């Protein structure tokens, strides 16, 4: 799994193969075998990890590849004349190419490295927002959004006097497309919407959202945090204007994320932050800025993070994104069936198309108590509002318990979850 490109420029002989190579993943995959590619499971043998929607575990290739980069190729990027800096720059820019392929973007300059999805959305809100939007213009979001796709628009609203419009969900938890369409107005300039709702796993028909929004002349930003690890994403086929995702949920390092933006939009946008890397020429009177993507990457970037993200995307491509989708769909279906047999358990978004996330309410037991007992059974899940408080309030809940899947999960993990939930009921409901 270790990419051949990660090799010291100064080494005479090739470096020995890393322990990650020869993993033999082949076509399709077996989650039980795959667990061996993730050292966390060797170090926590009983762990049933069902919190990948918060952050995914890291394969050996990412951990070792990142360390290897620091050991053999590390130097600051761009403008370095010496070989090591050139090498580091090459690896960093190679990672950008990998992201371009991952999203099927038309042009590598459309890929901006940021810290995470949150920063990607804030970048659009703070750069594109004031440059394009005028008082009374509308940004349309949905009730399914994570706080990171709500608060940046509220900040923009408070600065510029735009209106923030919210498209409602149906009673079953899916986006109400008719109501969404009804909220598209001549003043709607941007639709910012999640691809998969993080709190419920509901899959949003983003193709329809994009088509409807474009028909009304609005641009579209998709929050791909939960979709990027689970679905093949093709931004050209989708036709969206911006797409954001974060590295740590696609089995990559923390601290690195991606904003995709169509080049004509990015090139018309003012810088987001000022500093080194993003300039062509600086004098005290006037500064000329770089073209995208560098215009938006002020300061020394997370070089190792970007390279680690590239390795994570290699890992995903090697598994096959259709295979991952098939795995997640099958296991999600198994989970829905298994949880349906637990008395008093109500799955959120029942009947909705969902992927990789099972969010539920266990009658009479608070989510924090549920997750505490599950932890005793070595089952790691998340409890609470999942940074989607408006959605929780809409559903009349203070929070839920959320189990979310990764490539390393299998049916045995779901069975352990179900057994631990039954033990939880045993304890609290008597």
């Amino acid at each position, binding site marked *: 799994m270790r990419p051949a490109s990660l090799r010291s420029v100064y080494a005479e002989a090739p470096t020995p193969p890393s322990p990650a190579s020869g993993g033999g993943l082949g076509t399709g995959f077996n989650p039980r075998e795959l667990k061996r590619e993730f050292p966390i499971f060797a170090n926590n043998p009983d762990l049933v990890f069902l919190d990948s929607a918060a952050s995914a575990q890291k394969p050996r290739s990412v951990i070792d590849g990142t360390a290897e980069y620091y050991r053999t190729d590390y130097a600051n990027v761009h403008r370095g004349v010496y070989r090591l800096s050139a090498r580091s720059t090459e690896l960093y820019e190679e990672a950008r190419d990998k992201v371009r392929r991952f999203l099927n973007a038309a042009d590598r300059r459309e890929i901006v490295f940021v810290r995470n999805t949150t920063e990607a959305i804030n970048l659009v809100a703070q750069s594109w927002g004031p440059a394009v939007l005028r008082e009374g213009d509308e940004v349309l979001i949905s009730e399914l959004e994570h706080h990171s796709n709500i608060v940046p628009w509220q900040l923009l609203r408070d600065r510029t006097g735009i209106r923030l419009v919210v498209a409602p969900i149906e009673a079953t938890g899916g986006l109400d497309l008719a109501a969404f369409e009804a909220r598209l107005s001549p003043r709607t300039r941007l639709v910012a919407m999640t691809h998969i709702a993080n709190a419920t796993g509901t899959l949003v028909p983003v193709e329809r959202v994009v088509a409807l929004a474009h028909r009304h002349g609005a641009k579209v930003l998709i929050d791909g945090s939960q979709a990027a690890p689970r679905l093949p994403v093709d931004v050209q086929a989708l036709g969206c204007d911006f797409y954001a995702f974060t590295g740590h949920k696609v089995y990559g390092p923390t601290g690195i994320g991606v904003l995709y933006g169509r080049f004509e939009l990015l090139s018309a946008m003012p810088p987001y932050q000022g500093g080194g890397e993003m300039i062509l020429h600086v004098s005290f009177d006037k500064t000329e800025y770089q073209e995208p993507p560098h215009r938006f990457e002020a300061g020394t970037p997370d070089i190792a993070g970007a390279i680690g993200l590239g390795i994570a995307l290699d890992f995903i491509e090697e598994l096959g994104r259709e295979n991952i989708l098939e795995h997640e769909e099958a296991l999600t279906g198994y989970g829905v069936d298994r949880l349906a047999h637990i008395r008093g358990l109500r799955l959120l978004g029942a009947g909705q198309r969902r992927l990789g996330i099972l969010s539920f309410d266990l009658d*009479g037991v*608070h989510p924090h108590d549920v997750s505490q007992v599950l932890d005793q059974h070595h089952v790691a899940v998340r409890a609470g509002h999942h940074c989607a*408080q408006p959605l929780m309030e809409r559903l009349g809940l203070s929070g839920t318990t959320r189990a979310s899947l990764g490539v390393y999960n299998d049916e045995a993990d779901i069975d352990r979850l179900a057994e631990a939930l039954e033990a939880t009921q045993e304890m609290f409901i008597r």
Partner: protein
Amino acid sequence: MMDLRELYQDIILDHGRHPRNFRKIEHPTHFAQGYNPLCGDRVTIYVTLDGDRISDVSFQGRGCAISTAAASLMTEVLRGKSIADARALFAQFHARVTGGEPAQELTEPLVEEMDRLEPLTGVKAYPARVKCATLSWHALEAALKGSGATVKTE
């Protein structure tokens, strides 16, 4: 890891399921809200003071078994206590659940009340849950200081 039943003792499960004094006082002399932004739990504490004595105390809200039981037990031990007694109990309780040193020795009648709160001290092995046990006490303190406030645990 300690046995989970140390955290969820029968008395806690009982008070979690059937909280005592879970009602609104219509005309309290003091009240305040406690809010835990971490989990979104909320509790409102109502107090009726007669001089410096707590003649009635109750709560409402939604929370986990620990925070519900903690509020329920708190209302039980505080009825009839003076404000000074309530503060001394909170200081002692806070020290016990955080594993700190108690500020002062409790007087004999209060030691007995503290024993009733003992089942809640299991949270000290679970740092993420300490705030569940103390939320209602923080709200009580806010109520006694100035009515109508909202205190946050973060």
